[in-house]
Structure formats: structure tokens, C-alpha cells
């Protein structure tokens, strides 16, 4: 079985670093690709623009999608992904620092598979990321996979 990548959509460099640190602690074999805004995420997933060389069917195991992104917000990205047949069933976890119930509800409305609040405590954060990674990579058989 070919190891699929994890796509992290995060514009904050420090959060990205911490996220990578946390994911590394879990010692996953998956390659972690990072894109820094909504448009890049769409280009990556639809294999267009700067990612046109990529094969579209080479989809990531899970997308960790931050809500507040420049250009296209996480929710707009989510909306477009769910609208496309290629990415309709792609596992997407929304990452956010907001406690707002509104965000959570809107996230689910647009079809996020899960929601994770970025905890302030790094220990807790790392634990959450680890659980997330293990859960989606190890237990979830992504739809449409081979």
C-alpha cells in the first residue's frame, strides 16, 4: 500500500512549525505537504496552476484545513472541495483557534469531517494532532482510494 500524503493548509509559519513538530512526534510515515493559502490548497488538490504537474487522483489521506486563511478562507475552500466530484469525499479536518460555535456549525454545514481547535497548550496540541493523524491515517480508509 502506497503511503499517501497529509496536506496541511496553514498560513501561520509558527503554527505550521508547531504542527509539524507535533506530527513528527507521532512519527508518521506519511509525507506532509504544506500550502499557505486557500487558492494554493485548491491548486494542489485539483492539480492546477503551480501544481498542474501533480496527478489529481494522487489525493492526500487527510487535509488539515485552517479556517482563517488569506485570499480564500478555509470555509470557502471547503465549499469548493465539496462541490467537486473529485474531492467530494476527501477527509477534511478544520483547524481553528476560534471557540465560536458559529464556525463549528458552518464547518459542518459545508461538510467538514471533523473540527479541531488549536489548543494553546503545546502538550495538548501535540496530543490532539497525534490523535488526529493516527485516526485519519490509520483507521480511516479514505473513499475512492486504491
Amino acid at each position, binding site marked *: 500500500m502506497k503511503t499517501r500524503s497529509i496536506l496541511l493548509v496553514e498560513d501561520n509559519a*509558527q*503554527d505550521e512549525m508547531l504542527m509539524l513538530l507535533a506530527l513528527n512526534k507521532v512519527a508518521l510515515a506519511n509525507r506532509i505537504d504544506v500550502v499557505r493559502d486557500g487558492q494554493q490548497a485548491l491548486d494542489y488538490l485539483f492539480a492546477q496552476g503551480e501544481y498542474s504537474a501533480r496527478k489529481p487522483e494522487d489525493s492526500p489521506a487527510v487535509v488539515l484545513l485552517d479556517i482563517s486563511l488569506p485570499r480564500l478562507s478555509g470555509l470557502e475552500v471547503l465549499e469548493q472541495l465539496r462541490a467537486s466530484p473529485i474531492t467530494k469525499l476527501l477527509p477534511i479536518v478544520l483547524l481553528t483557534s*476560534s471557540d465560536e460555535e458559529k464556525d463549528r456549525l458552518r464547518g459542518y454545514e459545508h461538510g467538514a469531517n471533523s473540527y479541531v481547535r*488549536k489548543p*494553546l*497548550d503545546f502538550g495538548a496540541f501535540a496530543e490532539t494532532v497525534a490523535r488526529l493523524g493516527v485516526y485519519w491515517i490509520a483507521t480511516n480508509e479514505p473513499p475512492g482510494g486504491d
Partner: protein
Amino acid sequence: MRTLLQLLVLACLLPAMVGVAVILFRDYQDGRAQIVEDAVQTARALVRIVDAEFNKAEILGQALATSSYLDQRDLSGFHGRASGLLASTNIASNAVLTGPDGRQIINTLRPFGEPLPMYGDPAVIGQVLASGLPTISGVFAGGLSGAPKITVNLPVLAKGKVVYVLSVGVLPEQLHLILHRQNLAAGWVISIFDNSGIIAARIPGHAQNVGKKANDELIARITGPLEGTFESVTKEGVPAVLVYSRSPVSRWSVAIAVPRQALEARLIRKQIITAIVALLLFAATAGLAWSMGGQISDSVQALTAAAKKLGSGEPIAPSQSHFREAAEVASAMQGASALLAERRGALLELKDQLEIKVAERTKELSAANNELGSFAYAVSHDLRAPLRAMSGFSQVLLDDHGDKLDATAKGYLQQIDNASKRMGELIEGILALSRSTQGDLQREKVDISAMAERQLREFALSEPARPVKWSVEPELTAVGDRRMVEAVMSNLLGNAWKYTGKTNDACIRVHAGLLDGAAAICVTDNGAGFDMAHAKQLFQPFRRLHRQDEFVGIGIGLATVQRIVRRHGGEIRAESAPGAGATFCFTLAGTPSAGAS
């Protein structure tokens, strides 16, 4: 209105009517007294006339009685002398000379020497013989003719002795003639009675009544006082007022009967005329009052209608007024109505302007509020990322590179971590405060008792080591936004939990109370409490009455609670003293009987 005026007029007229009646009655009495007085005068005069008649007869008789013919016993000569004197004087009907035996000796009605009968009234002859004084007879049947007769009798003396009685005859017709001359009013009855009550003359019915005795009552009356007036009934059966006068000389009487009808007819006629005039006057006054009452009533009704319209703000149409005053009031009300309409218009315009302004301000305010809300949200959201970095990297340093750091360096890193966590809490607080005034209120009935029980159980679970006792009054309810009420209770109970942390036998009570007379929900603890002097700072954000090393906290809870309560239109107040615990009571508008049941 009309009826009232009628009554008023009647009330005014009534004394006048009574007065008129009294005057009429007095007039009647006076008139009657006048008539009676006139009758009395007439009777008195007639008695004198009758007496004068008898006096003339007596003088004539005196002349005859002292005639020389009698002295000389020349009876034949005396007859001639007497007949001649009678014919020339026309005073008496005849003269009779009667002897002491009562037999007539000479009667001028018969030729001298013709045999004559006894004198008709022997008693009077006896009386003259006995007394030797002139005497007037009563009415008696004449000795010759048997016709009623009256005589004046005189003694004829010879040597001091009564030898004959000379009688001068007076016929009742003579007296009747006297009565006739009086021309008395029709219906009146006038009679002359002799000294024993026998009728000597009468109008009307002279012939039938002469010589007849009057009735006993009349006799009893006229033989009493010399004059009198009394009610009686005439022989003809007519009710009358009878007046009489009696002569003290002859003891003859004259009586006049004034029929009551005749007496009253004139007076009654006069009174009827007066009464009719008075009634006409009253009717005219009443009619005038009725008409004026109608006019006043119409005017007042018009005014009342106008006043009602004024009260309800309708425009007033000009109305017909019969009185200057009413017209003035009506015009004043019209003016007031116009003024009111004008003011109302101006007021409405102002109100519209005000509403527009309020709407504008509300819009601006809500925009500013939303802006502030999203600003607070964005700020707190964006502040979190650097905090996460500070906290995260210091943690990574400690975890992954701790072996290269000494204890002091590790301590500093820990401080960075602590500070970032505390700042995270502050941001959470700002967000909570911002959330408390964002979004719509969705009021519903909330079971406060159940909510408090649940929250207290959660606190107990989070700190199982603390032996806190609590009691929650059952069936406490409030109407409010469930999420916000939850935040209020959670903050109040959380504070109670926190500030009883250093109290032995910590106890928290949730119960019903009163706040400004309204039913309130109260949370009471026996914890640290606070000085009421600082109570004002209690609800200000980030203001705390305790140091961090006493009780940790960020000072946002009560500010949030107060904002929520105020948003519901309610009020919150605290009562406390240092070391004596605290009580927080709050109301939510729209809570009909919070906790009162």
C-alpha cells in the same frame, strides 16, 4: 335642563301664587265685611226712620189727646177735628178713642155715632191705662177691619186720670213704602219687626207676611243685642247673612238678609278674573322658561358635544349658541381645538423626526456594536496565534531541549508559558464579554433550580476534595435566553465556589429573593465576601477586589453577568461584608414570578 328650569320657575311662582291666593282671600273677606257693614248701616238708618214715623204719629196723637174738644167732652167735635187733622197731615191712617172698658168710642174710619166694636188689641189699652204713658202697639188685627194694624197709643187725661186712650193708626203699607224707597239689590230681603217679632213690613212678599211671627231663632236673636250679624236661611229657603238693628226706643227692629250667593257672586267673579290673569301670567312665564330652557339646553348640549370632541381630539364644527356666554365658550373651545390640532401636528412631526433620528442612531449604534464585536473577535482570534507560538515553542524547548538548559532557564521558560496561558484566559474573557451582547435574545422559561444543581455537581466533580455543602430551592424559574442565563448562573456559582475556597464548612445557597419589589434569584455563599465600599467596581471588566495570590481570576465574570442581566431588562445587586460571605440577587424582565412559586 328644561325640566330643571321649569321646576325653578315653579319654585319662584309658587310663593307668588300663594301670595295671590292670600290677597284674594283677604280681599274677599274685606269685601264681604264691607257689604255686611253697609247692610248694618242701612238697617240702622231704617230703624231711625221707623222711629221717626212713630214719633210723628205720637206728636199727632199728642195734639189730638190734648184737644179742647175732649176737655169739653165734645166727642162729635173731636171726631171732626181728628178727621180733619189726619187728612191734612197724612201721617196716620186713622185715630181711635177707646174707653177704659176697651170699647171704641170714636173711630175716624166711621161716622160719629155709629156703634163700634171693642179695640183690636186690648192689652195695649190696659198698658196705657196702667202706665199713663204713650205706648206703641205691635202688629195686630184691627177691631173694625181685622186687617193688620199698628197704633201709637196715648192716654187722654182729665184731672190727672186716664179717661180715654187715643190710638193713632199706622198702616204696615206705610212702612212697606219706606222699605221700597231703599231700592235694595235684587235677592236681598228686608223686614221690619215689631217689638215681639211680628213682621210689620217685608220686601219681598209683604202682603203674605205682614202680621206673621218670625221664626223663633230670629226672634231670639233680634231681642238680644241691639245690633248683630249672623248666618241664617230666609223664609224662601235661601242661605243668607242676616244683619239687624233694633231701636232702643220702640224696640222695633229692621233685619236685612243678604243672600250668600249675592254676597259672594261679585267677589268670586273678581277673584276668578284675578286668578285667570295670574294663571295666564304663570303660563306665559312657564312657556318663556320652557323656551329659554330649550335654548340653554341646546347651547349646553352643543358645548358638551364640543368639549367631548375636544377631549377626543376631533375637530370642532361651529355650533349655534343662543347666549353670548355659550357662544364665547364655544368659540374658545374652537380656538383650543384648532390650537390642539396645530400642536398635535407639530408634535407628530417632531415625533416622526425623533423616530427617524432614533432609528438612525440605533442603526449607527448597532453597526458600531457589531463592528466592536467583530473587532473583539478578530483581535482575540489573531492574538491567539502568537500566544500559541510563545507557549508552544517554550514547551518544545522544555520538552526537546531541556537537557541543554539549567534550572533557571527552565524557570524562565515556564514563566513565558504561564504568561501566555494567562493572556489566553484574558482573551477568552474578552470574547465571552463580547458574546454576551451579541446575537438575539431568545426568551424561554428556564428551570433555574435544575440548572444550578447541575452546575454545582460539575464544580464538585472538578474539585472532589472540597467539601462544599449546597442547597437549591426547588421550582425556581426565570424567563430568559437559556445560553445567557446559563452563563449568569455559571459565573455566580463559580464565584461562590471560588470565594468559599478558604472557608471551613463552605456553604452555597440558591434561593428566591426580592429586588426592588420584584421576584429575584439569589446566590448566597459564606465565603470571603468583600467591602461594600468597593461594590461599584464589582461589575466593571477586569476590576477585581482580591489579589491573584488570594483568589485567581481575570475579573470578567460579573461584568459579563451584569451585561446579560441588563440586556434582559433586569437588575443585579450584591450584598456583602468582608469575611461574611456574599449574596448576589438578579431579576430578568419578563420573568413573571421568578422563584416566587
